[in-house]
């Protein structure tokens, strides 16, 4: 018996949970998190069943959502996997809202509940509250309201215009949802009351605008030569859904509103897609640190720690590239190790660390990590903080796969010459901008056949997948007239064109 365990009793001895225990663990976790200086939204813990977890899971983690078959597909898939016992059903879902809602599944044991509380209700929560992408791009206080509005609006449309018509629009919008985000401009705040009151106003106004844009009849006979160079839009537009919402000639007002809903929700999820490594790494680092603190204070038993560590180890394992379980770099593993590594660099810097990270080596770890969490996204985070030690630990190597060569070349490995290259290539791997094809609205033939031209600017000669033939059908359905996609190479030469006419009704 050590001295400390005389002072502190473990909160619980068995692995069963009760509401009182959850409350006790939570208040200890909260205290520890506060001591470490985590700033969070208020926490709301919700106990749910496995079925409810599956429901939440299949609606991309949101507590409410409009209905669409794709969520049904997710659901049958999740259900089947769960029944087969393949999936240790995600034990955490956390919603970026204020208060921050974290789900606890009733089937979980007490150590798992504590893990989820530390991971989701404190780790993710503080990330949501402080990371610059989330603070600029999402409004935690109004998202639930907006989703309710969306659900009701779409249900109303279904009764008024028929389920099939609504489904068609949603299908088309979903195909383009990655192209419904503003990358550089902060969207206005969402608010339920405003949404509802403005929605009708917007309907009327939009329609008048579109009528204006397309009113071409009186001035048909103009010298064609002037119009040769005329482009509409004058600058290429990256937000295709926004462009369609505002300018597609034939959409009904309610269809525009649906386009808007999909676009708004895509925008809300955009920061999550850009910060997966950081977000998970941060949350994992904190559940690890907090629960260890709990253990050091004698508040939990050895058995508790064993169960926690086993689950933690599974989460952060990284199979190597030749393993049958390999499916890319595990964001939990990379994130957790990078976060831990930052703390190590601050607390026990080596000579190498002083060379590579003069700013933070030997500094206060909490301040340095807080700074990293607030001001980066995956791409820049890796570019800034991936250390040579971690590259060695992961035994990372970079390959170059160029279709002009018959073989793949190993371009860098974990040695002195390779660190910089590995780091910048890995960082680039998390750049959504270069991972997703760069497709923008290029031109609308205002005076002619009203066709829409999208431009795909090839990045490193990477071609579009053939699913583009399917996507373009959706674009054509929304636009209502012919649609073209041109792939252009570095020399602005068109290398491939996709064309599609809208479906005839």
């Amino acid at each position: 018996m050590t001295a400390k365990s005389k002072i502190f009793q473990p909160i619980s001895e068995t692995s069963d949970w009760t509401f009182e225990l959850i409350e006790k663990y939570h208040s200890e976790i909260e205290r520890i998190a506060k001591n470490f200086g985590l700033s969070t939204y208020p926490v709301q813990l919700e106990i749910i069943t496995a079925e409810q977890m599956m429901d939440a899971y299949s609606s991309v983690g949101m507590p409410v959502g409009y209905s669409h078959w794709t969520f049904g597909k997710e659901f049958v898939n999740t259900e089947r996997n769960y029944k087969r016992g393949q999936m240790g059903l995600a034990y955490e879902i956390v919603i970026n809202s204020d208060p921050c809602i974290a789900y606890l599944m009733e089937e979980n044991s007490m150590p798992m509940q504590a893990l989820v509380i530390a991971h989701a209700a404190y780790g993710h929560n503080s990330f949501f509250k402080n990371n610059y992408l989330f603070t600029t791009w999402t409004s935690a206080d109004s998202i639930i309201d907006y989703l309710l509005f969306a659900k009701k609006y779409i249900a109303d449309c279904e009764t008024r215009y028929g389920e099939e018509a609504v489904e068609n629009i949603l299908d088309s919008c979903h195909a383009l949802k990655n192209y419904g985000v503003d990358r550089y401009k902060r969207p206005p705040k969402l608010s339920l009351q405003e949404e509802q009151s403005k929605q009708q106003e917007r309907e009327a106004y939009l329609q008048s605008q579109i009528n204006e844009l397309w009113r071409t009849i009186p001035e048909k006979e103009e010298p064609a030569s002037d119009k040769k160079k005329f482009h509409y839009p004058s600058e290429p537009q990256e937000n295709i859904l926004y462009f369609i919402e505002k300018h597609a000639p034939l959409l009904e007002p309610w269809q525009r509103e649906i386009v808007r809903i999909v676009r708004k929700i895509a925008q809300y999820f955009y920061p999550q897609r850009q910060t997966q490594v950081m977000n998970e790494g941060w949350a994992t680092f904190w559940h690890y640190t907090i629960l260890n603190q709990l253990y050091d204070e004698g508040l939990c038993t050895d058995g508790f720690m064993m169960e926690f560590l086993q689950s933690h180890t599974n989460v952060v394992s990284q199979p190597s590239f030749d393993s049958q379980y390999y499916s890319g770099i595990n964001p939990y593993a990379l994130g957790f190790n990078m976060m831990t590594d930052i703390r190590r660099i601050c607390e026990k810097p080596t000579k190498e660390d002083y060379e590579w990270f003069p700013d933070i080596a030997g500094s206060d770890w909490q301040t340095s990590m807080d700074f990293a969490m607030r001001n980066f996204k995956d791409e820049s985070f890796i570019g800034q903080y991936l250390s040579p030690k971690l590259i060695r630990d992961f035994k990372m190597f970079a390959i170059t796969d160029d279709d002009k060569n018959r073989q793949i070349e190993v371009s860098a490995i974990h040695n002195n010459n390779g660190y910089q290259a590995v780091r910048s290539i890995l960082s680039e791997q998390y750049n959504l901008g270069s991972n997703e094809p760069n497709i923008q609205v290029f031109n609308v033939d205002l005076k002619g056949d009203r066709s829409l031209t999208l431009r795909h600017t090839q990045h490193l000669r990477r071609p579009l997948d053939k699913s583009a033939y399917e996507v373009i059908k959706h674009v054509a359905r929304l636009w209502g007239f012919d649609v073209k996609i041109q792939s252009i190479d570095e020399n602005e030469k068109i290398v491939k064109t996709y064309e599609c006419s809208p479906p005839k009704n």
Partner: protein
Amino acid sequence: MAQIVDRRLNGKNKSAVNRQKFLRRFRKQIKKSIENVIAERSVTDLDKGEKISIPKKDTSEPFFHHTQGGHRDMVHPGNKEFQTGDKIPRPQSGNSQGDGSEASDSGEGEDDFVFELSREEFLQFFFEDLELPNLVKTKLSTITETKKIRAGHTSEGNPTNINVVRSLTGAMGRRMALRGPYKKEIKSIESELEDLLKRHDESDQLIIDLRERITYLKKRIKKIPFIDSFDLRYDNRIDQPVPTTQAVMFCIMDVSGSMGREEKDIAKRFFMLLYLFLTRTYEKIQIIFISHHTIASEVDEETFFYSRETGGTVVSSALKLMSSIIQDRFPTNDWNIYAAQASDGDNWHNDSKICVDIMNNKIMPFVQYYSYIEITADRQQNLWEEYTGIGSNWDNFAMKKIEKISDIYPVFRKLFQKRDA
């Protein structure tokens, strides 16, 4: 301080709508998958949910993404022996990034999207577009089945059904009504008394009489009972006839030597399909098994499917038996009668004519539907030819030939296809 909310009792079927949408969208593919299932699985399993697989490419949603090609730099973990500058052959159709995480996690292979239908959903798809012919006839006929429903209150009944509130309200009304005349009288006597008292004093006889009268009246008021048996009210429940629908299904099978195990198996499946189908329409279904060779007998299911007899075949014996069972036990205004006959078509030569006679006069007028399946890989036998005549006389008669197990479902569908009205 955190809020802890117990949401477990909230609805769990939030995804039900989405699931229905999904099923509706892929109904064509699901139906196709079900048809394959029927061909491969034993019919005894049909009454359960079913695993359905539809091509993954149909369910995938397109989005813009890169495919292999061009120039690509990637970082992987777990280097063992590579040195900078090493050349590696390009792996065949290697799992390029993109959908790498979708790697096959099941035994089904990556090309199928597999999920489970519940029993209800399965049957829905299974019998979609099928309908029972001539359903109208006895569907609405009422059977002496009743249900208790509430029907106001009565003044006599069972003590357990006493309606307290109603009884006490009645009692109160009665008390007020009975008190009325006495109170009126008391009031008038009291005012008279007041008048008298101004002129006379208490010892006056008139005043004493009046006072006595008041006391008497007050006593009378007190004597009015608080509650009387007359006040009691009972909840009333009456029997209301409930329309129920019921059906009887006759399974007639030839068990003579010519019907082998395989033919019987096919017949069994057909009967089971019919049974399943009937259960969706009727609340109660009775099944009568009639097996026959040269003589017919009503048997239990076990004997029906598994006993083996030898000898010749006289189909008319079974039809006679069926006809008499209908007359004895299943009055046609109460029962919907369905019959399915399975045979290899073999019949004693002179018997087929008799069969036609019985069918036309004693069976077809009474049954909702009669289906005959002939299980044979050969040319149709004599029974078929005779039955063809019946088919042209009666709408509710259908016959089809089945050669192998996989024919069952298509034939079944054909027999019960929705007809245009």
